[in-house]
């Protein structure tokens, strides 16, 4: 069953300045968020979902425009993250373009759109801002923090920065920091956007344009890294669109057509802001929680007191199982409560959003534990 009422986006206006990791200060900001289910009386059943690169606050249910949440398959009444039991919260990251203050917002200091002037934000900054949302919701401790990919990185950061605020941390298809290859892909995506003539040094809104070509290319590249070779082979093979080779540079293979469709959909229909894309990929590049702890992830995670579930997918080459092993090892070094599942899937990095019986079984059984601990926390009060 899905959440049937149209979901509503709430806004938390924060009027105190946020000191950013970069040294810059954001004088004031808003966070857009959605909630599902009911917060129980002692506020022990709240779960925060952290979104990935192009995600937003609309994670479950159907919004007023009829759009399904990006993780609706896993969140709702009776689903793995059961909204009959939990109060689920998801916010749009600061610097986003779906309601939270970001490059498309008006800079209060000059009344103009921020655009490229929006300061660089990091995973640490997101966690700081989400912590204010926690305070606003009057939640003392999250029953669980859950995130895939970039969302998983925020979960790790939360567990390190606010250990006592996190009971369970579920880190899916993530990595403790980006590899040189990951950063290289992000850089190509950024260059694609920045070299679009419609980019206008990031002031494209003022020029009433959208760097569609750059965004399309960036998304095509990103999408490529989310899929696995096997899955593309099965889905498209070398299938031709017209049935025979044309010997020109138009779309000939089905996989080319698919990638272009995905890229163009992102750049035009989804209207994703190019500056936000730059910002989010930069935040990914900068993510390195061990850096503050002598580059020792074990030392970084020594701060954490949460119980962990780490999940990876066999065909994910963007953040391979090996990257999850690093997280698991660092947690084991600290004798943490940790479980790890390596889910067989041919869907690459995207697998964390898709149906999969093993993944669902692991997730569901772990959420039972989260629920039991929630009931125990309730009984204690």
């Amino acid at each position, binding site marked *: 069953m899905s959440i049937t009422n149209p979901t509503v986006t709430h806004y938390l206006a924060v009027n105190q300045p946020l000191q950013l990791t970069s040294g810059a200060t954001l004088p004031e900001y808003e966070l857009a968020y959605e909630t599902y289910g009911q917060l129980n009386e002692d506020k022990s059943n709240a779960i925060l979902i952290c979104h990935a690169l192009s995600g937003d606050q609309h994670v479950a249910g159907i919004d007023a425009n009829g759009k399904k949440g990006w993780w609706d398959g896993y969140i709702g009444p009776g689903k793995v993250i059961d909204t009959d039991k939990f109060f689920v919260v998801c916010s749009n990251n600061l610097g986003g373009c779906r309601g939270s203050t970001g490059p498309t917002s008006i800079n209060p200091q000059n009344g103009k759109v921020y655009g490229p002037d929006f300061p660089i934000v990091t995973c640490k900054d997101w966690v700081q801002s989400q912590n204010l949302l926690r305070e606003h919701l009057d939640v003392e401790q999250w029953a669980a923090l859950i995130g895939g990919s970039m969302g998983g990185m925020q979960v790790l950061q939360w567990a390190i920065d606010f250990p006592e605020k996190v009971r369970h941390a579920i880190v899916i298809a993530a990595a403790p920091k980006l590899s040189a290859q990951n950063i290289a892909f992000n850089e190509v995506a950024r260059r694609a956007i920045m070299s679009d003539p419609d980019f206008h040094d990031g002031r494209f809104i003022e020029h009433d344009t959208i760097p569609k070509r750059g965004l399309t290319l960036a998304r095509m590249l990103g999408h490529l890294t989310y899929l696995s070779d096997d899955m593309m082979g099965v889905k498209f093979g070398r299938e031709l669109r017209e049935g025979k080779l044309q010997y020109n540079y138009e779309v000939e293979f089905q996989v080319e057509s698919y990638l272009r469709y995905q890229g163009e959909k992102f750049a035009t229909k989804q209207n994703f802001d190019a500056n936000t894309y730059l910002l989010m990929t930069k935040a990914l590049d900068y993510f390195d929680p061990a850096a503050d702890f002598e580059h020792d992830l074990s030392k970084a995670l020594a701060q954490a007191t949460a119980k962990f*579930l780490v999940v990876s997918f066999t065909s994910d080459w963007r953040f391979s199982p090996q990257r999850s092993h690093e997280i698991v090892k660092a947690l*084991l*070094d600290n004798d943490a409560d*940790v479980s790890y599942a390596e889910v067989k899937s041919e869907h690459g990095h995207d697998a964390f959003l898709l149906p999969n019986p093993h993944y669902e079984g*692991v997730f569901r*059984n*772990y959420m039972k534990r989260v629920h039991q601990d929630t009931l125990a926390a309730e009984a204690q009060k």
Partner: protein
Amino acid sequence: MSNEFKLISDWIQPDSRVLDLGCGDGELLNYLIKTHNVNGYGMELDPDKTTQALGNGINVIQTDLNSYDLTYYFDEDSFDYVIMTQALQVVSRPDELLDEMLSIGKNCIITFPNFGHWRNRAQLMFGGTMPETETLPYHWFDTPNIHMCTFKDFEKLCEDKHIKVVARTVVNSEHESSLGMRIAPNLLGEVALYQIRKK
């Protein structure tokens, strides 16, 4: 609760740290948590069993012991006990795995079926076929057991590797012991439980 698990638990000190290799659905670890207040982890390759172990409240790490070095995850002497029940014979290099276990565990407990049991010997000698018994209920072509050994073989390996056998219990397929088994374990014993450590 299987008798084997009860026998193992007799060897475990309360409040110790335990790693259970090939933990299945986590039954043994769960039992040890409840009866001996141990803490630790299970390791399991099978996805369904991993899921069940999670559901049973066990901290379980999904790992292939054939392709993953235990010393990557754990430092020397991280555990008071590293346990492996009925799995030594299914791994690709039991000798190497033993080294890893002895490195990360102060004590190791291992159980495995005895290929030298008289019934196995008799089937091969008189029937001329690979043994199929209650303890070894497989055909030669579908068995997961790729490195069968006898108690004698195992003890020889321990000797060669300078591994100290601290205790041994030899039982039948119901995990009961008898006088005969104590006198001629390699001939009459079906399953052995060994407690070993570095010399």
